[in-house]
């Protein structure tokens, strides 16, 4: 039986991604540089990018998106590691805990966001409990966790979704491959903390890195959650781009594409950085196994 040529096997998927994804991205690039412009007095060039990169609202949005993505990813990694370390022992109620762990994964982000809205606004459920307990005297004493300047509600939403995602990847590693190495280290006399930092953590790193890049990218570029829970200023980059896209002023169109392309660029850099890091880790792992 002659084997199918590799490129033939890759073709359908690559074609789909090329036509339905790369082409729109390229189109977006061209439109941001003012090709196909409707208004007659715009020239092809990087004007849109200059406008965007020097505008205060863009810079604020960039920092805001970055802050939300970094904080939520970092917290999720911590929580994921802690919870997975607990779950790998045979504690009571473990089976149900494992199911609960996976529960959040299929629940869409904006449903979780809605829940956070119901709980943590100043007139939300948590505020009412505090009021009933006499801890706060009115709704405005409750801290502003949603629609606020730091995106706290948004971060909480992402953490609720991200930590099971990263945690499952970590847990499956802990339950399968890592156990042997850890036992070896134990027989060699390493105590718990040393085993964690010198054996477990390095072995978990690739999986953590991979899943957390996905999370970071989502948090950085998502539209739905900040739309529901964010304040009017600053907006995240995705919201800013959409706002420019739907602006009545057609001159904002290229700027909308410019913002979107900046997001794309950041993501591409992220992917390349992650890949180089992962390959480096793989090489070290290969060396270590010898």
């Amino acid at each position, binding site marked *: 039986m002659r084997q199918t040529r590799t490129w033939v096997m890759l073709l359908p998927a690559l074609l789909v991604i090329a036509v339905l*994804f790369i082409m729109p991205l390229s189109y977006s690039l061209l439109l941001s540089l003012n090709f196909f412009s409707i208004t007659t007095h715009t020239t092809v060039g990087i004007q849109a990018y200059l406008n965007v990169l020097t505008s205060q609202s863009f810079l604020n949005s960039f920092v805001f998106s970055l802050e939300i993505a970094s904080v939520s990813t970092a917290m999720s990694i911590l929580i994921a590691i802690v919870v997975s370390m607990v779950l790998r022992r045979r504690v009571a109620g473990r089976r149900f805990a494992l199911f609960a762990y996976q529960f959040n994964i299929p629940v869409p982000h904006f449903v979780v966001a809605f829940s956070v809205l119901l709980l943590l606004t100043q007139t939300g459920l948590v505020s009412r409990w505090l009021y009933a307990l006499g801890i706060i005297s009115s709704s405005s004493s409750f801290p502003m966790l949603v629609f606020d300047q730091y995106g706290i509600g948004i971060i909480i939403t992402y953490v609720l979704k991200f930590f099971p995602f990263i945690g499952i990847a970590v847990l499956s590693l802990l339950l399968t491959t890592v156990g042997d190495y850890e036992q070896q280290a134990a027989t060699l006399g390493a105590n718990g903390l040393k085993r964690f930092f010198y054996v477990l953590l390095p072995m978990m790193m690739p999986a953590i890195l991979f899943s957390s890049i996905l999370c970071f990218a989502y948090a950085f570029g998502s539209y739905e959650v900040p739309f529901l829970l964010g304040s009017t200023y600053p907006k995240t980059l995705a919201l800013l781009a959409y706002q420019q896209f739907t602006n009545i002023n057609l001159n904002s169109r290229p700027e909308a594409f410019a913002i979107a392309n900046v997001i794309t660029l950041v993501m*591409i850099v992220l992917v390349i950085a992650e890949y180089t890091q992962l390959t480096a880790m793989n090489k070290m792992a290969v060396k270590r196994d010898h």
Partner: protein
Amino acid sequence: MLALLYLAIIATIVPIILWSFSFRWAYPSLLPAWSLAAWDYVFQQNAIIVALIDSIAVSSAVTLFTMVLGFTAAKALGTREFRGKVAVELLVLLPAIVPAISAVMGMSGIFTLLKCENTFLGVVLAQIPFGMPYMIMGLASAFKNYDMEYEQAASTLGASRWRTLIEVTVPAIFPALVVSCLFTFVVSWSQYLLTLIIGGSAVNTLPLALFALMGSGDYGIACAVSIIFILPVLVLLVLSSKYLTTNGISNGGVNQL
């Protein structure tokens, strides 16, 4: 410690359940005025049922197409080494990292040219690339543990390629196939921005209906629709839960071969 985990999960879902059974729930009451008004509204309103059917149709189509289109690529990535493999892997990963907002505006322009803007087909096509990474990555990792010798054995015994596919390959990676389809379905199920911009007025999926309700301030109905929204994917999760064990994913259905 586990208590915190449970708290996080409960926090996700309980407020929505409670609020769906309320008519009005003004501050600072701890309990609402219980009522089934929201649920009455949901089941009598055609719009919600239609949106549900639309969502199921779109997501099923997306999952099916993504699976068919991505299968061979995943197999190639998992079982073969070739020049440019890293580039292909990065390319396949790209739609999972680059957010919808970056692609959707360009998509809108191109789809208008292709005349599938505002159509069911357009929405399905728009969502396929975003499901591809999960489908391909999930299947490829199963194929890494797959031994091509099974196929060679089958061919020696006289099986046609088609038969080998159905009776050897698919059963061997079945758990990963189920999980990948689940992921792709969920990704498609939760799409809002894509459907909003590409489907616009013609295609109304549940997320679109839900966003409108969430903004309306009538939280009771929004919560009821939210529950209808997450029930199908939760059902799918439960149905496929036996394939989600770590053993299942890495060893595949090889034990049954």
